[in-house]
């Protein structure tokens, strides 16, 4: 039975690792090492509840653990994140691809958001969750989740104004 549990768990992790790692990276604002720690922590928690939720929605469970842990750890400021007026130094776009440059710019912009706003924006626009589910994942009322998402988007709109040109 333990063998079957381990096989199922390993299969899920191997299949979803890349997507979950990208979600964790967006939730922490681009810090690769912090994202890996966060994902490992969430998967360890998943292992102990795996027999109960293996047949239901393990990815939703990991998503919830990731989002809440990212908000908590950001409040503790493990990596000393500070909002700045100017974007930090970006890599030269001459020797890297445009996709990497765009990702770096996006992560730098996300890093300037407060953690709960960042989590709400990522869940709303990357995970494409409705506001009700965003609120459920973050453990807050729907109005609060909507407020976090709209404020986060408004701030990103200013930060990324030179990247995403307004239409019209």
């Amino acid at each position, binding site marked *: 039975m333990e063998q079957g549990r381990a096989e199922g768990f*390993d299969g899920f992790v191997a299949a979803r*690792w890349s997507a979950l790692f*990208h979600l964790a990276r967006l939730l922490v604002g681009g810090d690769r090492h912090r994202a890996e720690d966060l994902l*490992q922590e969430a998967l*360890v928690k998943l292992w102990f509840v795996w027999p109960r939720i293996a047949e239901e929605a393990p990815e939703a469970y990991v998503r919830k653990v990731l989002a809440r842990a990212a908000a908590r750890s950001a409040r503790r400021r493990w990596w000393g994140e500070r909002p700045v007026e100017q974007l930090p130094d970006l890599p030269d776009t001459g020797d890297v691809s445009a996709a990497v440059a*765009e*990702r770096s710019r*996006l992560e730098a912009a996300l890093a300037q958001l407060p953690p709960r706003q960042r989590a709400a924006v990522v869940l709303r626009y990357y995970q494409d969750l409705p506001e009700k589910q965003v609120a459920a994942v973050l453990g807050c009322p729907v109005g609060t989740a909507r407020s976090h998402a709209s404020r986060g988007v408004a701030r990103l709109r200013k930060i990324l104004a030179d990247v*995403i040109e307004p239409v019209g």
Partner: protein
Amino acid sequence: MDHFEGELARMMRDSQEHTPFGPQHQRRLRSGVRARHRARVAQRAVGSALAVAGLGLGLLLLPHDTVETRPQAPLPRPATSPAPSSSATRTPDGSPTEPSMPPPTGTADATAGGGGTPSHTPTAPVEGSGATTDVPTTPGTSTRVPSNPDSSVTTPPPTSEATLSPPPTP
């Protein structure tokens, strides 16, 4: 969803790069699971020990609570003694106590001037002596009440009673 929000969603999706789940990730995950398992076992052991300790402490303190809830006062005695013997009016430790019924008037020790304590008024329960008072009810039953029920323990001569405690004078 406006243009900016659409572009933001696209940037988030397009920025995903493929990251395989390597053996180093697997090893780290296994070690994390083992560490958390050990922590949970230790936490459970500590919890069980605390529960047992609390239960033992509670059982230790339980008898004291029952002792404190026992009645401290002696049980009420009947108004009339069922037998002419004075054993019903004595406490288990042998100390004399006053009966709950009012003492009959005219007894030898009712107005003893030597003090209120019964030890100063030793009276004899000898029937037929002057120390007893006959209640005017059915004779031969418990109607004969000794004036001082403690007299079987201390049995001074009944003759001395008259000198120690004269009958009350109206």
